[in-house]
């Protein structure tokens, strides 16, 4: 336990672990609110350094304060600013001091604390939070060192464990498989059959990985046009999709049709026109859109929703196993960093020794 009267490194906040989305919405800071709240924090007595990590899954304050009392004041200030009950916040808050605060930041940055275990976007968000703190001069020698080392250690964990390997969402698994077949997706033509939510997500995933050529076919042409406009793609009346099959490398099927849409015969005919080029069929529909017999065709790769979900589950299981190794590494790093910080802190501001 920290002595409440000595300088303290702390983290305080709420995340998806304890806070449902309805509450996270209330706690989230918009850009305007963030600017306003930071001006208040600048005047908070005893708060020497701070940074705010504000993402869709968490609002967290990382800081260096003269005493633990300051942390409680920060909480009261935040709740008052957001019109949130202090008692309710106390029930959901995540709070750690000193070495544990460092450990928390390390785990957050390495993606161990994320909803999608091992995701890498969070590191960028932590970097943004630190950059924002630097620009408003709210970080000093302690947090500078903590954040800079955090980036280094998070990268180390990503390199030395398989925590980020293998995709864990169906859309990203599909894109990963496509790269195993086509390599660079820039030259692959994608045909989207159905313009529903899952098709939309998959198209986004493909585009984020470099796919440029996309055609959308839907029974509702206006919906196809709407989705196509989002991706700068072409829209097609649904009955015309067979004409595109031979020109497509990847076909993403997600229609609500009760019967088979893409027959084995249609695939066979298309492959006759492009025998040397593989065709990747992604069937995300239930009931299935693609005749399973299509997979028998040479150079045809067919994956349905179950196949993709199974791969995602396997990848997640592998990441979970790696999490133990990653946590061990980060614990070691947190101990090291904490011992360095507590030794190097000026005598007057001496931080607590590790417990």
């Amino acid at each position, binding site marked *: 336990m920290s002595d409440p009267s000595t300088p303290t490194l702390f983290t305080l906040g709420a995340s998806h672990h304890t806070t449902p989305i309805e509450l996270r919405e209330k706690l989230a800071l918009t850009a305007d609110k963030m600017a306003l709240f930071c001006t208040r924090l600048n005047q908070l007595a005893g708060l020497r350094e701070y940074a705010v990590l504000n993402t869709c899954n968490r609002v967290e304050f990382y800081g260096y304060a003269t005493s633990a009392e300051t942390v409680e004041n920060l909480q009261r200030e935040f709740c008052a600013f957001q019109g949130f009950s202090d008692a309710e916040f106390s029930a959901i808050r995540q709070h750690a001091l000193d070495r544990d605060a460092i450990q928390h930041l390390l785990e957050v940055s390495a993606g161990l604390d994320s909803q999608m275990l091992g995701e890498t976007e969070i590191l960028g968000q932590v970097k943004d939070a630190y950059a924002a703190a630097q620009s408003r001069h709210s970080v000093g020698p302690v947090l500078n060192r903590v954040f800079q080392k955090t980036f280094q250690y998070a990268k180390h964990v990503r390199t030395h464990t398989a925590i980020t390997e*293998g995709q864990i969402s169906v859309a990203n698994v599909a894109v990963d498989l496509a790269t*195993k077949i086509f*390599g660079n997706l820039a030259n692959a033509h994608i045909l989207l059959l159905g313009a529903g939510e899952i098709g939309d997500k998959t198209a986004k995933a493909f585009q984020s990985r470099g796919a440029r050529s996309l055609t959308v076919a839907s029974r509702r042409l206006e919906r196809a046009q709407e989705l196509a406009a989002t991706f700068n793609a072409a829209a097609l009346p649904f009955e015309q999709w067979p004409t595109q099959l031979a020109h497509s490398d990847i076909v993403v099927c997600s229609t609500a049709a009760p019967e088979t849409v893409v027959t084995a015969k249609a695939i066979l005919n298309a492959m006759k026109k492009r025998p*040397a080029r593989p065709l990747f069929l992604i069937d995300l529909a239930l009931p299935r859109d693609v005749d399973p017999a299509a997979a028998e065709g040479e150079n045809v790769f067919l994956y349905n929703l179950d196949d993709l979900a199974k791969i995602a589950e396997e990848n997640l299981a592998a990441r979970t196993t790696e999490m133990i190794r990653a946590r061990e590494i980060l614990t070691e790093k947190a101990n090291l960093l904490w011992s360095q910080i507590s030794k190097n802190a000026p005598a007057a501001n001496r931080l607590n020794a590790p417990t």
Partner: protein
Amino acid sequence: MDTFTDRTWLWFAATLYLTGFVLGTVALLRDRRHSRAWMYLLITAGFIIQTVGLSLRGKALQGCPITNIFELFQFTAWSATSLYLVIGPTFRLSLLGYFTACLSASLTFVSLVMPAWDAVRRMKIPGGSPWIEFHAALAMFSYGVFALLALTSIMYLLQVFSLQRRHLRGFFSFLPSVVDLDHISYRLLCAGVVLMSAALSVGYVHWIHDRESVPFYKILITGSIWATYSVALVLRWRGILITKRLAWTCIALFGAALISLGPINASRNKTPTTPAAPTASQP
């Protein structure tokens, strides 16, 4: 040192190739991507040392060291490795270095542990023409290209197997894409056929002047291998022989090409031979 013979250098080279293969295997078994730079470095070191060994032999023979089965295997490994060193960084095919190390280690070690293959060495160029030697060296280099083609074909089959059977983790996760492997295989097939055609053309020019110097069965064997690779290339170009069928064909053809080295070598034993003595690096 008199004991530092050409074979010693070739043993060192084989050991470096084997080291690359073993380190790559260990990394893959631990589910880790091996360092491509280290693999490249090991193979480069192996290649340089093998070049020294083969140069010593060549110097002693006063010609290209492709006079017996041992040297033919060594030269094939050397050709495949040299090609890898050129195309490896260009195409950046993951695991190609690992497979090349495996192939080169296999060919060099097998040749080194078979004393009979190096028991007799020819000391004269058959026909006394440097063009014939050029023909033989070019033909052997095309075998190196076909060796690399066999490797990319194996990688292609493994990737297709992994995608069709849903074995995507571990070793399979490091394989290059199907399309990349198909493209590189096609290019290697083209390059191999062009090189072998050039080799046979040079040999033909010599043969029409001295038909007695080459036995018919040698022409039949090399001609068949060239013709089969050429047919495979045409069929691939026409989109008839593709995907797994092409990959299996390339692997089988390279197997046949390796086996053909025996009869081809035997056909040249009419020329003066000498019991092999190790060639020292320093006289």
